[in-house]
C-alpha cells in the first residue's frame, strides 16, 4: 500500500511529465514504440525491485539513442518520428540492446553462484585459521564450547601463526 507521501510524489512526477511529453511528444512517441521490449519485461518481471526491468530497460534505452539523435537531427517532427518507428535499423538497435540486457540477466546467476562458492570456501578457510590460532594460544579447551569440537589437525587450513604474548 502506497503511503500518502508516495502518492503525492507520483502525482508530482505525472504533473511534470505532462508538459514535458507535450513539448517532446515526437520523441516520446518514438521512445514509447522502441521501448516495447522493456514493457514486455515489465509485464513478465515479478522480482522485488523489478531488477529485470532495470536491466533490460537500461540497455533498451541505450539502444534507442541513435534513433532519438536522428529524430532530433530532423527537427523532432512527427514525420521524422514515424520514420524512425519504421526504420529497421532503429528497431534493430533497440531490440539488440534489449537482448544484451536479457543476456546479462540470465548469465549473471551462474557467474554469481560460482563466485559466491569460491568466496564462501575462502571465508571458511580463513575462519578455520582463526580457530587454529585460538587453539594454539589457548589450548584445545577453548574449543570445548562448541558441540563438535574442532581439534588441531582435523582439517588444517594452513599453519597458524604464534600467539602474541
Amino acid at each position: 500500500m502506497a503511503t500518502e507521501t508516495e502518492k503525492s510524489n507520483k502525482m508530482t512526477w505525472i504533473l511534470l511529465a505532462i508538459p514535458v511529453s507535450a513539448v517532446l511528444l515526437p520523441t516520446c512517441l518514438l521512445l514509447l514504440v522502441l521501448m516495447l521490449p522493456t514493457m514486455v519485461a515489465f509485464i513478465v518481471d515479478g522480482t522485488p525491485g523489478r531488477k529485470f526491468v532495470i536491466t533490460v530497460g537500461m540497455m533498451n534505452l541505450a539502444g534507442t539513442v541513435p534513433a532519438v539523435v536522428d529524430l532530433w537531427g530532423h527537427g523532432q517532427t512527427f514525420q521524422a518520428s514515424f520514420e524512425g518507428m519504421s526504420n529497421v535499423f532503429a528497431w534493430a538497435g533497440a531490440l539488440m540492446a534489449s537482448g544484451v540486457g536479457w543476456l546479462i540477466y540470465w548469465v549473471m546467476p551462474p557467474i554469481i553462484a560460482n563466485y559466491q562458492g569460491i568466496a564462501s570456501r575462502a571465508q571458511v578457510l580463513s575462519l578455520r585459521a582463526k580457530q587454529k590460532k585460538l587453539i594454539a594460544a589457548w589450548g584445545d579447551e577453548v574449543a570445548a564450547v562448541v558441540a563438535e569440537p574442532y581439534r588441531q589437525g582435523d582439517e588444517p587450513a594452513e599453519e597458524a601463526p604464534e600467539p602474541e604474548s
Partner: protein
Amino acid sequence: MSGTSAGRAGKRGAEKGIELSDRYEVYPDQPLPFLNSPGCDAVAALDKRNPSLALFALICSRELAPRVDAVRSLSHVESSAFLTPRASGIITQASDQKRKFVIIFEQPRGERVQSEPSASFQPLSEDDLIRGVITPMVTNLRELGGRILAHRAIRADNIFTSGGSNQEIILGECVSSPAGYFQPVIYEPIDAGMSTPSGRGPGYISDDFYALGVLIAVLSHGGNPVPQLSDQEVVASKIAVGSYATLVGQARVSLKLMEALRGLLCDDPAERWNIMDLDLWANGRHLSPKQATLSAKAARAFEFDGEEYNTARGLSFAMGHNWSLAQETLRDDALEGWVRRSLSDEKCASAILKASRMSRMGGEGGGGQDKAVAGVLTALDHLAPIRYKSISARLDGLAQALAIDFDKDHVPQMISEVVRSKLHKSWIEVQPSMKPEYVPWIRQADIIESFVNRSRIGFGPERALYECNSSWPCLSPLLKNDFVNEGAELLPALERLAQDGIPDYVPMDRHIAAFSATRVKNLSERLFIQLAEPADKLQYNVSVLRLFSEIQRATGPEALPNTARWFAKLLGPITETYHFRSFRQQLSKGIEGATQSGDLAELLWLVDNENLRQQDEVGFAQAQNEFASIAGQITWHEDGALTSDAHVAAISQRASAVVSAVLASVSIAVMSFIYVT
C-alpha cells in the same frame, strides 16, 4: 674404682676432625667408650686454641633429645667438681651423613666411681664421703640451685674421681638426655620412681638432694644396697617402710652420716634437707635425725591381685600396675568400705564412692572407667604421679612424656585423654596445699589441653609437644637424619634434604607444621588454616610454599635453591592450569629464574598470582566466545548461506541491474561523444 683411660688422648692429628663453632674439632671415628653416657656415644674432641686439653664429645640422639637449655645454662658454671659443657652444636657424621647434636666436655682425669649401675666397688669411708663427695656436691648443688636447675643424673656411675692425690669427686654431665630418664629407680624419690622414665620430668632441686642421699648410701655400701629388688619392689618397699629403711636399713652407719642420710632420703619433699641444712650439717651443726613419715596402716588388709595391702599408698601403687583388675575392683563398694572403715579416711572414701559410681555409669569399656580408676588411684595416694592406663607421669613430666614417647602407640592419645579429663586438675585438688612450683606445670598442662583439642595440622599433640618442650628437636620423619631444634634450622635442613636429589613428596607433615608454628615467631594462624583446608593437591602444595616463604622471610636464609627446585617440581603442573600458552611459557621461565635465586616468596608470587589467574580466566572466556562465534560463521558458510538459490538470485539481480546500468551509461556516453564530434 673402675674404668680405663687407655687411649684417652685419642689419635688426633691422623684424621681431620669435624669442625664445631670454629674452635673445636670432633672425631667421631675415635670413640671413647669409657666416657659414654646412657644413650650417647663419647668420641674424642679437640680445642684448637688449646690442643693439649683432653676433651670429649657426647653425640646425642634425636629421640632422647639433650637438654639444650640446660647446656646453655650450665656452660657458665665455674666448678672443678662438675663436668661443665664447654661447647655444643651440630655436626655431620661422615659415616652416615646424619647430623647430630654434640656436647663437648673436658675429660675427667680420674675414672668412673662405678663402671655400671650394677657393679660393686670398694666402699668409701665416712671421711672420704664427707670430704670427697658431700663437700664438692654441696658446691655443685648450690650452683645448680642458683640456676633453678635440677641435675637429675646424680648417681655413682656418673661421678668421676678427680685423679692424683685429690680425693674429691667430679659430678658427671646431665645434659645429654632428658632429665632423669636414665636414672635408676633407687636414685629417684617415690613419686618419680613410680613414674615411667619418660614421665619423671625435669624435676626439682629436692630430687637432686634425694639422689645425693642415695649416692651416699651406695658409696658407703660399695654398690647398690638393694640389688635383689626389682624396680617395682624398690618403690613398694620405699612406700611401705620409707626410703631410708629400704636403702640403708640395718647397715652400720655413723650417727653423723645417718643424720644426713635421714634428712636427704626423707620421702616428704617439704621435709627433705635442702642446701641450707646440708651447709649447716657440713659445718658441724647437728640436726635431729628425720624420722620416716609412713602412711597410715589399715586395721585389716585389702586383698588385691592375691596380695594383701595395709596402706592406701601401697594399694594404689599395686592397682596402678594392674589397670584392668583395678577397673574390676571399682565395680563393688568393697574398696570404699575398706577405706572408710579400716583407714577411717572419709574424704578418700567419698572420692572413691564417687568414682565407683561414675565407673558403673560409664559401662563396659567406656572412657569413664579409666577416668574413675585414675581418680581413685590419686585419691588413695595424692603423692603419687598422675596415672592413666600405661601412663604414669608427674605433673611436670606430662610434656616430657609426650615428647619422649610420642612415637609409642597411643601415648599422645592417652596424654590427650589425661588433660581432656582434667586429671591433672584432679591431682592438684587432692594435694594438701597448692605449691608455687605447680603453677608453670599447670599452665603447661593447659597448653597441652588447648592444642590437643584442635586436631588440624599445625595443632594437635604435635603442637603441644613443641610448645611445652622448648628445645625438643623436630620429630618429622623427613628430618630423621637431621637435628632441627630451632626455627631457623628448619629450611636449611630441608635444603640439605633436597641437595642430593629432589624427593617426590611434599616437605610437610604434622610435625613440621607444629614445629614451625612454635619455633618461628609471628607466623599467622591463617597459614595453617590454609594448610588444613586445601581445595586440591596443588593448592595444598601452594599453601606449604606460602608457609615456607613466610619462614624464609622470618628466619632466612635468603637463597634456598634446592628447596625452590623441590617446590618447582611439585608445582610444575600449576602452569598447566593456565589456559593461555604464553602465560604458561612466562610462568615456566619465571619459575626457573626463582629456582635459581632460591627465593621462595618470588616462587610463590609466580604460582599464586591472582591477577594473572584472573587475566587468564577472562581472556579464556573471551577466546571461547570468539571460537564459538567463528564456529557459527563456519557453519553458516558450510550450510550454503552464500550459495543458496535465493541468495544467488538476489545478488545476481542486483548485479545484473548494476552491470546493465554501467554498460548503458558507457554506451550512451560513447555514442554521444561520436555524434557530437
